[in-house]
């Protein structure tokens, strides 16, 4: 990888220092809290699944029962662990009995705290072992069926019907896609639970459910065997059920997850604390499961002016990186996001795009950067759109990007038809193949537009991070620092799911993962 830009390394260090202080402050604010979704995740890990007769997932039923009694601050594993000990039932059975009102967790005799912890830790370690098995399986498969060359071709399926998705995903994988992302149904991020079972209806996407994860994973595993190339599977680990989705992904061997520290706050108006707590635990799970996360900085550019907001993308990437590293994620798992979204009418827009892409590449050399295609300036002119996607692919190969979310010529019209995806894959394959080594062929002239633009964005980023470090991230978010969006510190959805931890609060999985991931104690 070439260092085509001559960047001010001191300024980069300065940015990292600001970011550390930003992350310190955020951690201080979240460390004493848990959330309903974190606790539901613990239940799921312990083996609770399924829905009650109203279709409400059992983890919700049980966590809500405990929360309603204001007793969630000890952690669900205390209550549920005690239940397991007292009844001797398997987790799922116990959950069902609770949900049916046959067992009341609070009226059971109480084991000693220490014993519950010990008991539950043992189960948790076993579960963790299973997850490690999934990691091993991934490694094994990838060594047998190697990954494609980077930039990896990333395409989405979004029919709303998991069975239709499977057809489209398999066709795409055979055409050459390296990564399949199943887009979620509109507004799933606002559901404070995960739907259950295979689903065949959704708008603009398919519900993320554990069953759907499994169906798609199995389908892709079959293609992997046949095409002798590992195909990575992606879903959305964000919204109000963020950590639960992480758990599902860990169990079903997803390979990547959209998972951002601030996306929910900004774009789904989810409460800040809720988001920060959820992202932290969800990322530990992703870290442990060897999953690459994809952050959502691209969204800043679709919403606000992409030229003016370039530095906010970089600032956010610094923050996502720092918060991510603190959850045990390695740099190699940090698919920091950015996007090719400049108004194409701007003269030399391509040079400005390259400046940004190369800047990010050099600042995060080990990160599997995720590069998002033009969307905002795509219109019904599918021919021009296909060309813009080609220029985007070209920008990627020049600047050594890692994860290439392929643009679709019909971006402005509909979620991809089967041929749209095939044409996009053909587009990327053509551009990448015909310019495979261009990155090592060229140097950017010092004092050129590209170098200057990169310098400017870096400088603005440092200034911005300085301000955020001073004010704190939450305050800054409330003032609209990213994407022109202001969110009140205590507002937003899911605020009522944030719960202050008791002194003897306990989360067995956080414990196990922290230890193995060598995360320093949070308090």
């Amino acid at each position, binding site marked *: 990888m070439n260092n085509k830009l001559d960047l001010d390394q001191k300024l980069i260090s300065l940015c990292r220092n600001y970011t550390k202080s930003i992350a310190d402050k955020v951690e201080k604010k979240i460390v004493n809290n848990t959330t309903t979704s974190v606790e539901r995740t613990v239940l799921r890990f312990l083996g609770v699944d399924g829905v009650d007769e109203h279709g409400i997932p059992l983890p919700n039923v049980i966590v809500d029962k405990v929360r309603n009694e204001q007793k969630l601050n000890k952690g669900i594993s205390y209550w549920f662990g005690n239940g397991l000990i007292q009844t001797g039932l398997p987790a799922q059975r116990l959950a069902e009995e609770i949900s049916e009102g046959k067992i009341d967790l609070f009226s059971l005799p109480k084991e000693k705290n220490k014993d519950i912890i010990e008991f539950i830790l043992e189960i948790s370690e076993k579960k963790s072992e299973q997850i490690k098995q999934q990691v091993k399986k991934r490694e094994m498969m990838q060594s047998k069926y190697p990954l494609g060359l980077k930039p990896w071709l990333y395409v989405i399926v979004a029919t709303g019907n998991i069975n239709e998705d499977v057809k489209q995903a398999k066709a795409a994988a055979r*055409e050459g896609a390296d990564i399949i992302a199943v887009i979620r149904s*509109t507004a799933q991020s606002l559901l404070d639970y995960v739907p259950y079972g295979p689903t065949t209806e959704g*708008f603009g996407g398919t519900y993320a459910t554990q069953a759907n994860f499994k169906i798609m994973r199995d389908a892709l595993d079959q293609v992997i065997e046949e095409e002798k190339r590992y195909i990575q599977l992606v879903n959305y680990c964000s919204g109000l059920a963020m950590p639960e989705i992480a758990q599902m992904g860990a169990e079903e061997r997803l390979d990547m997850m959209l998972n951002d520290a601030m996306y929910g706050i900004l774009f789904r108006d989810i409460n800040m604390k809720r988001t920060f707590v959820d992202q932290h635990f969800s990322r530990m799970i992703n870290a442990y499961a060897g999953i690459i996360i994809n952050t959502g900085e691209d969204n800043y550019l679709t*919403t606000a002016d992409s030229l003016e907001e370039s530095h906010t993308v970089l600032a956010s990437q610094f923050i996502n990186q720092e918060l991510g590293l603190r959850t045990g994620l390695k740099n190699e798992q940090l698919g920091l996001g950015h996007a090719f979204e400049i108004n194409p009418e701007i003269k030399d827009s391509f040079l400005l795009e390259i400046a940004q892409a190369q800047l990010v590449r050099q600042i995060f050399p080990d990160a599997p950067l995720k590069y998002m295609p033009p969307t905002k300036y795509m219109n*019904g002119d599918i021919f021009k759109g296909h060309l813009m996607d080609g220029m985007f692919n070209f920008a990627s190969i020049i600047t050594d990007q890692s994860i290439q979310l392929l643009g679709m010529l019909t971006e402005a019209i509909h979620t991809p038809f089967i041929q749209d995806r*095939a044409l996009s894959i053909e587009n990327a394959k053509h551009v990448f193949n015909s310019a495979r080594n261009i990155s090592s062929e060229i140097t950017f002239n010092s004092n050129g537009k590209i170098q200057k633009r990169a310098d400017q964005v870096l400088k603005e980023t440092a200034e911005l991070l300085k301000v955020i470090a001073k004010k704190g991230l939450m305050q800054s978010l409330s003032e609209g620092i990213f994407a022109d969006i202001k969110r009140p510190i205590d507002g937003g959805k899911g605020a009522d799911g944030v719960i202050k931890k008791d002194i003897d609060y306990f989360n067995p999985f956080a414990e196990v993962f922290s230890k193995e991931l060598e995360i320093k104690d949070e308090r």
Partner: protein
Amino acid sequence: MKDNIIRAYGDTYNDGKIQLSFTFPVKQGLKAAEACKRYCFKLGLEDVEVVHMKDLKEGFTFFVVYAVSKESVNLDKITVAKIDTEIMDYYKINDYIKEKINRKINVVGACTGTDAHTVGLDAILNMKGYDGEYGLERYHEINTVNMGSQVANEKLIETAVKIKADAILVSQVVTQKNIHIKNLTEFVEILEAEGLRDQFILILGGPRISHELALELGFDAGFGSGTKPNEVASYIVQKVYKDSILVKGGE
């Protein structure tokens, strides 16, 4: 052929040349190509050339076709519903309100249902505006409430009543599986059920919206891709004025 009766045009007047592309759930091969041709014949096409056939795997084949259609349309028979109020600029509109309406105009806008695409609505409502034109918030003679994304129809109506809105502006971007039709129909039905329909000017916007569609759905006007804020404001103020005259006339 008469000048007003037109066909598609490639390089010779009325040659009827068109391009198509589509996928069939059939394995690539001679049979697929033939199926493609017959399908085109069923669309009434002639001189069908399957110029490209691509195996999409999993039993799908993609085709690119050039063909000739003898169909034509008579331009003389086409009339289109269009918004015919004069388009004024920011200054003229404010003046118009001051002079002719003589009170501030109230508007409320939202992306309704599950739609979270606020950029288009913001383009019309926010200070900053769009394509060099200020948004409605900037107009000192207009009170603007922007409720943002994923607003329930009931909530929007409630707010409109509360602020005594002259106009309700609804944005719908997601149209997959006609979700917008369902949502917009529901919106108008609620208004009608509550006897509120006539109290508001109903304005619809979004990239797949046409004035015609808006009328069909029971709105007063519809605005599509590339709409500028002043076009919307022009329409609103003139409609408010016209309605006020009508009311007076009726009294």
